């Protein structure tokens, strides 16, 4: 459903990604692995449309989206949980969640209750400002907000980074639940190899801005030199 062909992208003059080709199928979980600074977040931002594509093409459900803005891609059904959560700190938790409906044609408020079931703390804190939440709670909010849009494809950029272990577990359970119970496809950037192996259907390893390994199974000998520090 998502296809990147020879994508090049980066910030201003400096190119970060070169010749990246990636394919995501319906109901598939793709894991993107790699060390810090090799272009994983750049890739996610390029898929979302936050960064402009400098070369190559991006297609989503047979629609050409290479030049489309983030707004249009979001409306097409791509959801985004960015690294560093990027929730709206001066809006309340509830208002943050309501913004999830912007790209969802189905405005039924029932979806919020589903999110509350995943993350009960969001219901308790619903009238507090997003900025009052702890890092882990903000991450839950960012995921909840993305789920309310009911995306066909969900981009998750290191959802467990810098978060206390019990919340990491909650988040991993939600991802597993989405994989098993819904048709949502996911692109997951993950540092936790164990979890990546547990949830991923297909893997891409990125090093120095390009794909160095891909396969439906992680072969340790092949990927080790690209992942070890």
């Amino acid at each position, binding site marked *: 459903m998502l296809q990147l062909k020879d994508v090049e992208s980066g910030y201003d003059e400096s190119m970060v990604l070169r010749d990246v080709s990636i394919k995501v199928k319906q109901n598939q979980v793709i894991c993107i692995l790699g060390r810090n600074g090799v272009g994983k977040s750049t890739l996610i931002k390029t898929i*979302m*449309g*936050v960064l402009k594509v400098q070369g190559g093409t991006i297609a989503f459900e047979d629609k050409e989206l290479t030049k489309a*803005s*983030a*707004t249009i*891609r*979001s*409306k097409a059904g791509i959801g*985004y949980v*960015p690294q*560093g*959560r*990027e929730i*709206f*700190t*001066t*809006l309340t938790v509830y*208002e943050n969640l*309501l*913004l*999830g409906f*912007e*790209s*969802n044609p189905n405005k039924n408020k029932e979806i919020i209750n589903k999110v509350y079931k995943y993350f009960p703390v969001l219901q308790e804190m619903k009238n507090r*400002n*997003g*900025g*009052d*939440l702890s*890092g882990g709670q*903000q991450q839950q909010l960012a995921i909840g*907000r993305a789920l309310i*849009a009911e995306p066909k494809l969900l981009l998750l950029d290191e959802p467990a980074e*810098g978060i206390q272990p019990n919340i990491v577990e909650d988040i991993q359970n939600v991802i597993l639940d989405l994989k098993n119970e819904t048709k949502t496809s996911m692109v997951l950037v993950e540092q936790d190899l164990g979890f990546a192996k547990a949830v991923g259907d297909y893997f891409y390893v990125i090093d120095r801005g390009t794909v160095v390994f891909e396969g439906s199974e992680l072969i340790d000998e092949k990927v080790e030199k690209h992942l070890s520090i």
Partner: protein
Amino acid sequence: MEGIIAQIFNGISLGSILLLIALGLAITFGLMNVINMAHGELIMIGAYTTYVVQTIFINYFPEGLFDWYFLFAIPAAFILAALIGLVMEVTVIRFLYGRPLDSLLATFGISLVLQQLARSIFGAPNVGVQSPELLSGAVEIFSMSFPISRIFILILVALCVGFMFYYFYKTGNGRRIRAVMQNRDMAASLGISTRKVDASTFAIGAGFAGVAGMALTLIGPIGPTLGTAYIIDAFMVVVVGGVGMLLGTVAGALGIGVFNTIFEYFTDASMGRVLIFVLIILFLQWKPNGLFSINTRKLD
């Protein structure tokens, strides 16, 4: 005692006028960070709109209805100023977001164009707008008289502020505006059209400038350079109040109004002006971000 109450009323009244002229700027400058030098001219447009509505009422409506022209002038001034603001945004401002110096120059240019436009249409001399009978005169309370036009402006300001708070904090559009102003990329990634939000927000800010212009016709004559007299005050109020904070703008305007009146009471008009600027400079040394600033938990 009566003197003090009169001074307090004068202070609040001045504050309410300051607030009215700064409300639109609190949106365009405070929220969107566009240094809009043409804000004064948007006020001027509102004032001339009122003049035109009044002239239409004099010429085409029975005399008995004349008093009600100002009820039509308020939405007319808002809509016309908002439309001109929208045209400004779409043709010029949108290319200049994040470039304060360029937008300062460009909007200054726009302000000169608008001034000349007003001169060409209405002539260089000031024109007077006749206050409606209802709003002239004064009410007597405990042997003190309060001009009705000033009270009307107070109520108008209260309504405008109330409407703005409601719009920004209780409606879906307000939510979208706040989201875009805080984090443009993330808002776009959620499917919010940032272009639409930018254009409509700027237009709303311009519309409030128009309403301010309508109110200024109750205070004095209006001319093509009406706006230049108020632009400094408007920026002063927004900066003192804290950029980006609606509540700060309200507090800033009332504070400046009251202090200005007190200083003028003890000295004279120009000395009062000097003192208020000294006070603001000192205040901004102490609180560079203004009265209210955004404080939230910073992460990572």
